[in-house]
């Protein structure tokens, strides 16, 4: 199963990122994964949090532009070559990756990689067909 990711548009001005984290802290939202895509003019903050609805409400109220999108959180063994194997699976099946980042989540010896895939259904099938597990709830 896929999970929801919250994206927040950030104008390139000082303090904006701090404001996002402050808003989330005040709403008692726990951030489970975080990444920023930045350009010269703006950034897009991507978040996996424990309470999506509350997070969206708090961010919108604080004037942030947000968007929900579907991503896949794949659990991999925390050892050399694990990620390479997943990448190879996707590549062989021509599943394009838009972007990926790592999560804070992880049992001992495991890592969780968040994938934004061009074809979500196909990607999920490949992950499960190959015996990899996905995280469905953070």
């Amino acid at each position: 199963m896929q999970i929801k990711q919250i994206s927040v548009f950030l104008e390139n001005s000082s303090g904006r990122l701090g404001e996002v984290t402050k808003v989330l802290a005040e709403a008692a939202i726990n951030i489970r994964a975080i990444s920023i895509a930045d350009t010269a003019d703006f950034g897009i903050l991507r978040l996996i949090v424990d309470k999506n609805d509350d997070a969206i409400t708090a961010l919108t109220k604080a004037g942030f532009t947000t968007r929900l999108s579907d991503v896949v959180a794949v659990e991999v063994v925390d050892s050399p070559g694990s990620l390479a194997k997943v990448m190879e699976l996707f590549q062989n099946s021509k599943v394009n990756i838009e972007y990926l980042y790592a999560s804070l989540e992880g049992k001992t010896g495991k890592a969780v990689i968040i994938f934004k895939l061009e074809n979500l259904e196909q990607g999920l099938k490949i992950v499960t067909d190959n015996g990899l597990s996905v995280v469905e709830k953070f």
Partner: protein
Amino acid sequence: MIFNPEHECMDQTARKKLQLANLKNLVEKLYTTVPFYRKKMDALGISSRDIHTLGDIEKLPFTTKDDLRENYPRGLLASPPDRIVEVHMSSGTTGKPVVDEYTQKDIDIWREAMARTLAGGGCTKDDIVQNCYGYGLFTGGPGAHYGAMTIGAEVLPMSSGNTARQLMVMQDFGTTMLTCTPSYALYMAEEAADAGVDLKKLPLSKGCFGAEPWSENMRKEIESRYGMKAYDIYGLTEIIGPGVAFECEAQDGLHINEDLFYPEIIDPETGKHVKRGEKGELVFTTLTKEGTPLLRYRTRDITYFMDEPCSCGRTTVRMHRLFGRTDDMLIIRGVNVFPSQIEHALFGIEGTEPQYLIVVNRGESHLDEVELLVEVKQEFFSDETRGLETLRNKIQDVMKSKLQIGLKVKLVEPKTIERSIGKAKRVIDNRKL
């Protein structure tokens, strides 16, 4: 509806005769009552006896905004002070305000001019007009108020601001016509959408918008958001306030109330008349005013005359909607740019909100740099940078091809550009020229 068919549909030869007679009277009156004009005419060696045709108006001196400022507050008064019944003035943000003083006859002229104007936008005695132009020294509120009352419509004198209350009254009283600045109309539409008010379901069907230049695409935006007809109106404090020119149902140029305000279009450099139909600076002479009549006032507004007969039946000459002003014209690396051009280009691009700000800086290399802040529609944001970068590049490309200047587009979040309830501030020019 044509408010005054006798004057608005008058045979043009008869109108010219009337204009000439009034022009002669005005010149005579100004020479005898206003020392400022007597000095100017003496310097040119001209008097009312030299006016034989309307073309002779070119012999007469211009009046500029600077002249008005230098004669602040009452130097241009042409009637005894005890005959003045009302005073208006501009905000004076760029210097001393310009003053218009009205006798009772001037107020009657204004009522007539604004009644014609609102009638051009479809106003009848059955309409409920929500007037959100500012009241006070600004001419917008009172002008629209007088016009609507003269038609016999019901007026809601809201003034500008307090948008929540505007929307409440609009719904509860069944407003059928709106009068305000076009930027405030858009602002209200945005607030309405946020409040879950579907403007298209309200009885509101038309509006007259003016006091700032706007584009055809902005009209489309207002018309689609409200489900109404949006008409452009034109006026300025110096001449009477709103009511100088207005669009009719044809929405094809603004009919000038030329029996009251005699228009010319000149080359701003030479001061000579341009060839009929060519673009230039609009100049007005107030033919019948008493309080502070003006001779050949240079408006700094750029337009051209449209002489083809209008389908509405009015015979008055039309002017094209404004192309901008000679004084807010930006010269960017030698290229003349009007903010309205940028606006027009922007509104044709999907994904952008009709809110923008132009910031002009002179960079370290002494080249002018223009940054265009554009608000992006909420739905247009995504979790990927690509979509937004594509949009930004597209805006830059469109601007480059339409304006011949390269400008840097910065995408900003919805509702971050300061909203205006009066005239929108669209340009910040940081150059020290």
